[in-house]
C-alpha cells in the first residue's frame, strides 16, 4: 500500500507488540526489544514510536491494569490493528522479494 511508510524502529515496535499480544505496554515493549535486539532503547523513544503508530492507525490502545509497582497508575495496552497487520505483511513481502532478488553470487562468492 502506498503511503504507509514504516520506519525501522517502528517496525520493531510493531513486531514486539505482536509478540507481547495483549500485554504490550511501554515498559514491557522496551524490555522485549532490548532483550531480543540487544540494543539499548529508551522508554521515551518507545513511547514516541507507539504514539506515532497509533496516529497512523496501526495500533489500537486501551487503558487497563493498575499495579502496585506503578504506584497505582494505569498502563496503556496496545494491540495491532488490521491495518497494522497489513503494513507488517507488506513490509515483510518487500523484504522477502528483495532478498530473493539478490543473486547467489553475493552470498556465496565466485
Amino acid at each position, binding site marked *: 500500500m502506498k503511503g504507509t511508510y514504516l520506519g525501522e524502529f517502528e517496525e520493531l515496535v510493531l513486531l514486539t507488540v505482536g509478540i507481547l499480544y495483549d500485554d504490550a505496554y511501554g515498559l514491557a515493549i522496551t524490555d522485549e526489544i532490548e532483550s531480543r535486539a540487544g540494543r539499548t532503547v529508551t522508554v521515551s523513544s518507545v513511547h514516541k514510536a507507539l*504514539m506515532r503508530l497509533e496516529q497512523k492507525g496501526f495500533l489500537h490502545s486501551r487503558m487497563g491494569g493498575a499495579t502496585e509497582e506503578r504506584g497505582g497508575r494505569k498502563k496503556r495496552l496496545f494491540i495491532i490493528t488490521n491495518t497494522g497487520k497489513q503494513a507488517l505483511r507488506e513490509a515483510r513481502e518487500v523484504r522477502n522479494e528483495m532478498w530473493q532478488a539478490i543473486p547467489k553470487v553475493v552470498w556465496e562468492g565466485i
Partner: protein
Amino acid sequence: MKKKPVPPRLADRFLEWHCNPELLDEVQGDLYELFQRRIKKYGIRRSRWFYWLNVLMFFQPFTTRRKESQYYTTNDMDMFKNYIRTAIRNLSRHKTYVLINLLGMGFALACCIVAFLNLDYKLRFDEHHLDKTTSVYRVNTVRDTENGKEPWGTSPVALGSVISQDLTGVNRIMRLHHSNGIVKANDKTFGETIHYADMDLLKIFNFPLLYGNSTAFDDPKTVVLTPATALKYFGDENPIGKELVIIDQFKRENTFIVGAVMQKIPENTSILFNLMISISHAFEPTHFPEHDWKAEAQITTFVELTEGHAPADINKMLDQYVAVHNVFREDFKVSDFYLQPFKELAFTSDIDLPGEVKGRALNRNAVGFLVGITTFLSLLILLTACFNFTNTSIAFSSNRLKEIGIRKVIGGARHQLIKQFMVENLVLCILSIGIGLLGAQYLTEAYNGLFDQSLDMRYVFKSRVLIFLIALPVVTALFAGSYPAFYISKHQPVAILKGRTKFATMGKFSKVLLTAQFSFSCFAIIAGIILTQNAAYQEHLDFGYDLRKIAVTAVNNSKEFTGFQNAIEQNANIGSIAGSSQIVGQSYEVPVKTNPDDPEMKVRRLEVGSNYLQTVGIGLLAGRDFIESSASDLEQAVIVNQKLIEDLQWKEDPLNKQIFINGKPYHIIGLAENHKELGLLGEEPACLFTLVPPSEFKYLSVNVPVDQLAEVNNGLMQTWFQVNPDVPYEGFLQEMLIFKQLYMNIVLRNLCFFLAVATLIMSAAGFFSIVSLSVLKRTKEIGIRKVFGGSVKQMMHLISRDFIKFILIAFVVGSLLGYLVIEEVLFNKMYVYHIPLGVGAFGLTLFIMLLVPGLTVGLRVYKAATANPSEILRYE
C-alpha cells in the same frame, strides 16, 4: 514497616506539569516501575538519578500539553440549546426569584425610559422644522448694556424691510411679532395673544394643516388658527370661511376670515401661536411704523438665504446698519447684528443653557429641574434594581452548587459554566426589558398626566433610546451574572459534592448597601406618609372663608357690573352676589395707627362692596356690614379683623373706636373673623376692609354650593356674552389663587408615594435574597434544632435576630433624614400651615419597616422551619 522508596518529588512534579494529561498516567507509571526495578539492581541513589534522566528525556514536543480544546470538541449550538433549556427550567422552578428580578428591573427600566423620553423631548425641540430650515437664520442684535455685550433674539422693525430690499443673497425675510388683543367670534369674546407674521413663515417652516390649504395665506384677510383656538370659539365645527373680529392693541377693529387651521403644534417648538394674521396689520404709523428706525418695537426677523451665500457675508453687510440704528435710538445702543442658524435657537433659549440669547420672543425650551429630577431618580432606582439583581443572583446560584459539581465531573469546562450563567441572566434581562417597555406605557401616561407634558412612547423605538435600553440590561446581566458565575464555577467538584464548600457569605459591602437601601426606603415612606397627611390636612383646612364656593368674574366698569349682576340674580343656584376692587388674596399693604403719633403698623387692606364679606363667607363677630350707598360709610367706615385688634393690643371692645389709615381717620363699625389672606404661605394677617362704590368695582364674586360650582361657572360665561357681547370674558374660581400651592403639594406627595413603594419593594426583594442565603446556610442547624425540640417560633426568632439590627439602623437613619428634610425644607421654608410632625407618622413607618421584612423573613423561615427534620438531615 519499611517506607516505600519514592522517586524524586521534583522530577515528578516537573513531569506532571509539562506532560499531556492523557499520557501522564502511562508515562509516569512506566517510569515508576522502572524506578522500582532499578532500586533492586543499582540502589536508590542511582535510580533516582536515572529517574531524572528519564523524565528529562521525556520532555519532548510529543508529550507536552496541548490546549484543552484540542482534546475534545464541543458542539456549541447544542450546548447553547441546552443552556437555554436549563435556564428556562431553573427559572420556572424559582418563580419568586424570577418575579422579583423581573419586576424590579422592569420597573427601573420603565422609569429610565420615561426620564429619557423627557430628555429626548427637550433635545428634539423644533424637530419638525429642522429639515426645511437649513438656510433659515434669525437676525440677532448685540446690545451694549451695563452687563456688557448681550445677544438678543429680536431686531429693529426697520431692519427687516431694509434687508429684503437692499441685500443680495437673501431670498426672503419673515418677520414675527405678537401682541395682545381681543378676539370676537361666534358670539364669544376673549382676550388673546395675537401673532403677526409674513405668512410665508407658515409655508417655509412646514406647519402642516388640518383644515384649509396654503393658498389662503396669500390673502391679507386670512386668519390661521390652532385646533385649540378653533375649538374655543367654534366648537367642533369646521371653522373655515367663518368670520372673526380682532381688536388690536391700538384699538383698531378688523374682520378676518378663517383660512386654515394648523395641526396641533407640539410644545417643543419655538414658534407657538394661537392665531396668526399677516404682519401688515401689525403696523401703525405712530407707534409701530414699518420702516422707521425710530420705532421702539423689536420683532423677530428670520431670513432665508439663497444658495451659495454664507451667513458670514450677510453679517458683514449688516454691519452698515448698526450706525444707522444707533443714530435714531440712542437709548438702545447696538454694537452688531448677526445671523443665528435656526437649529441653534432652541438650545440658546433658556437661562440654564450656555450661550443664552436674551429678549427672545419665541417659546422657551425649559430644560431644567424636571428633567434633572426624573433622570436622577430613575438612575437611582435602576442602581437599586441592579444591585438587587446581583444579590438575588448570588443567593440563588448558591442553591445550585450540586448541579455545578456534577456538571464539572461530567466534563464541563469552567468557561462553559460561566457561559451558562450568563445565558440565564441574559434571558432574565431580556424578559425584564419586555416588562419595562410594557410598564413604560403606563408610566408615560401617568407622567404626562402629572406634569402636563406629552411624551410619546413611539419615540422609544425611533432613537438611540433603544440602543441604550438594550445595552443597559445586557450590561447589568453581564455584571450581575459575572460575580456568581466566576466565583462559583471555581469550586472543585469533589469539594462541592462532599458538601465542603462554604456558601457565599454576605460581605460588608452587601450589608452596607442593604442598610442604605432600607434607609432610603424608610425616608421615602416617612415623607410619603407625612405629605399625604399634610395634603389631606390642607384640603380640609379652614381658610376662614368659603374658598371653594366662590366664582369670580372680572368687570371693567359699573355698567358691566350692574348689567351682569341683574342678569344672574335670576339664577336660583347662585347664593349671594357682591362686588369689590380686590378679591381675597389680592390685598395690599397700608400703614395703620391708633393715634397720629404712634408708630405705624402695616396691615392688609381690601376694598370691597357691601355684602362682600357675607358672600365670601367671612363671619362678622360684632358690629355690622357696610351699607351700600351710605356716604359716611364710604368716607370713614372700616371693618377690622381679630388679628388687627390683637396686634394693636386693644383689650376693650373695638367698635366705634378710631384708627388712622394712611393718616386718614376711620372708625370701626364691625369686627370680622380672621382668614388666610396669604393662603398657605403665611400666617393669617391683620386685615381691614373699606367700602368702595360700584364705580370702582373690578370683580364680581358669587357664592355657590360646591357641587354646582362648575355648572354655574359655565352659566356665568354664557350670560356674560349675552349681556356684554363686546367685552372679553375673564372669569375664574376663587380657589385658583392658591391652586398652585395645593397642586405642588399633590405633586410632591405623589412623587414620594411612588418612590416609597418602589424602594420598599426593591429593598424587600434584596432583603429576601439575603435571608434566603442565611437560611440555606443554616438548614442543617435548623433541622437539628427541631429534632431537639425547637419550635417554629424559636427558629424564626433565631434567624431574624441577625437582621433586626440592620432594619433598626436603617429606620433610625431614614427617620432622621426624613425629619430633617421635612422639618427644615418643607415646613419652615414653605408652608406655614402644616400638620405637626407627630409620632404617628414615624410609628407607622416603623411598623411598615418591620412588617415588610418581617413577612419576608417569616415566609422563608417558615418554610425551612416546618420542613421535616429527617428530610433535611437525610440529604447529607
